[in-house]
């Protein structure tokens, strides 16, 4: 345990450990900072930010599932200018590491604008570009479902940023590896995956969908096997680092993700039901590493391949 080295590195961004609360499940950090010193984390990815402020979808936006949940928040956020002027300064008071800026958009222009603004912020260490949103100029299909569209967003964003850019992929596709490859070829520094699975629930009393918007994003421990498979496939397909996520809820899951090919691992829905979950995982890692005879965590990245 004394010797457990949990350090990992994402395109130059050095992390004390690979544990990163995922976008949308950690707000802008300070709700959790009320509970514990969030500097114990590797870093975290802040709430998906768009050019304009967004209220998001009508409520109910949340449904429960076995070992998971559905959300249809719809990217509620105060808009990039307020994030820069209000959220980041507040965050600076409780977090002294570089944060991951999660960016969403509905057009290439919007992605470019928001990424450029966030690239200029000192506190931002890495930009995670969520391409699961529907493309309003391209017929509503999500940017992340076609390799060409994914590549276009990547290229556009890379042209206006200096910080590492990770493209965050949706698993709701036939061939996630081909999309990852297109992003790599377009210049992405890394790949982040997975975003939520499309899912739904119906309320038996009302005999109507639980979620006002009908469908939503399904995540939590239930989806871990799908996420692990996607990380495995993408690790096989690209030569850039992968951030793995989807259902991670304990230190063992972190190690499984890294063996599949993840350089770092994000924790999502579990933060919502156990606000201390990410801290516990960080603290538990050395013990679990010892159990599985791991000294340097970074040595096991992709270790289960061949």
């Amino acid at each position, binding site marked *: 345990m004394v010797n457990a080295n949990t350090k990992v590195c994402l395109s130059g961004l050095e992390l004390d450990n690979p544990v990163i609360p995922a976008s*949308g*499940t*950690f*707000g802008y950090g300070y*709700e*959790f900072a*009320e*509970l514990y010193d969030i500097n114990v984390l590797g870093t975290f990815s802040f*709430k998906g930010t768009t050019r304009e402020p967004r*209220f*998001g979808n009508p*409520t*109910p*936006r*949340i*449904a*429960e*599932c*076995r*070992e*998971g*949940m559905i*959300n249809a*928040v719809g990217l*509620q956020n105060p808009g990039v200018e307020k994030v820069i002027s209000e959220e980041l300064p507040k965050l600076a008071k409780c977090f002294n590491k570089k944060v991951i800026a999660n960016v969403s958009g509905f057009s290439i222009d919007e992605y470019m604008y928001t990424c450029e603004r966030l690239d200029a912020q000192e506190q931002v260490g890495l930009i995670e570009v969520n391409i699961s949103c529907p493309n309003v100029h391209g017929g509503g299909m999500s940017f992340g479902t076609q390799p060409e569209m994914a590549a276009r967003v990547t290229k556009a964003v890379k042209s206006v940023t200096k910080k590492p850019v990770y493209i965050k992929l949706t698993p709701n596709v036939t061939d996630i590896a081909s999309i990852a490859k297109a992003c790599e070829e377009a210049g992405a520094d890394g790949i982040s995956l997975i975003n939520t699975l499309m899912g739904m629930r119906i309320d038996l009393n009302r005999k109507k969908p*639980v979620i006002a918007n009908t469908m939503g994003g399904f995540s*939590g*421990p239930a989806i871990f096997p799908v996420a692990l498979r996607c990380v495995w496939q993408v690790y096989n397909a690209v030569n850039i680092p992968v951030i793995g996520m989807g259902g991670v809820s304990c230190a063992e899951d972190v190690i499984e993700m890294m063996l599949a090919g993840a350089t770092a691992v994000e924790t999502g*829905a579990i*933060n*919502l*039901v*156990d*606000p*201390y979950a990410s801290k516990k995982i960080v603290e538990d890692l050395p013990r679990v590493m010892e159990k599985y005879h791991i000294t340097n965590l970074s040595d096991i990245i992709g270790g289960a391949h061949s």
Partner: protein
Amino acid sequence: MKQGIFTIQSNENIALNVYKMVLTGDTGAITAPGQFVDIMLEGYFLRRPISVCDCVDGKLTLIYKVVGKGTEAMAGLEAEQKLDLLTGLGNGYDLTACRNHALLIGGGVGVPPLYMMARELREMGKEVSVILGFNKAKEIFYQKEFEALGAHTYVATADGSVGTKGFVTDVMNSVDIPYDYFYCCGPEPMLKAVYNASKTGGQFSFEERMGCGFGACMGCSCKTKYGNKRICKDGPVLTKEEIIW
């Protein structure tokens, strides 16, 4: 907000499908009536939000109705069992808004949070009137408890089996209660009816499906005249003037 392990002291059926659970544990984070706790239940992913009905000397009282699988599981729990709770969630009611005479209006399992509020208002020396709305006699609970606090207590039942026949607003419209402020908790149609029937300022407690219960997920947002609010963190209590229906 605090996370803590609580021990069940008792868990009893007090009305049709309604249970009262008393727990002990660290209640230090609970600062106002109208706040809620979020309960982790084995086998269920999301926590269940339940309002604080009362909280004195480290004893926490919750009153809940069995409406689905989670609350059904809760009803099966026994004394000595442990529960993982997030406590001190939500803003709670602002009791200082009432000058002399508060009107408390609750419907169904909207009644519980009014109890702690009535007790505290009485302790502050204020006059308290309470209107409790239920569907039928079998569902009524806590009428005596409110009376014991010295609150003027009115009951309305939809079927007329006890008290005024009809809704809480029928009591508001028929009895002349000299309140200067009101506090309300119940199903949304009731909140709206009270909004329209009320003659003074007041506060309303809202419900929404929640992901986290502590402001992190944006699952429970609503629009108000003062901007977007999270029911779990900026609410569940909203003031009359900020509400957009």
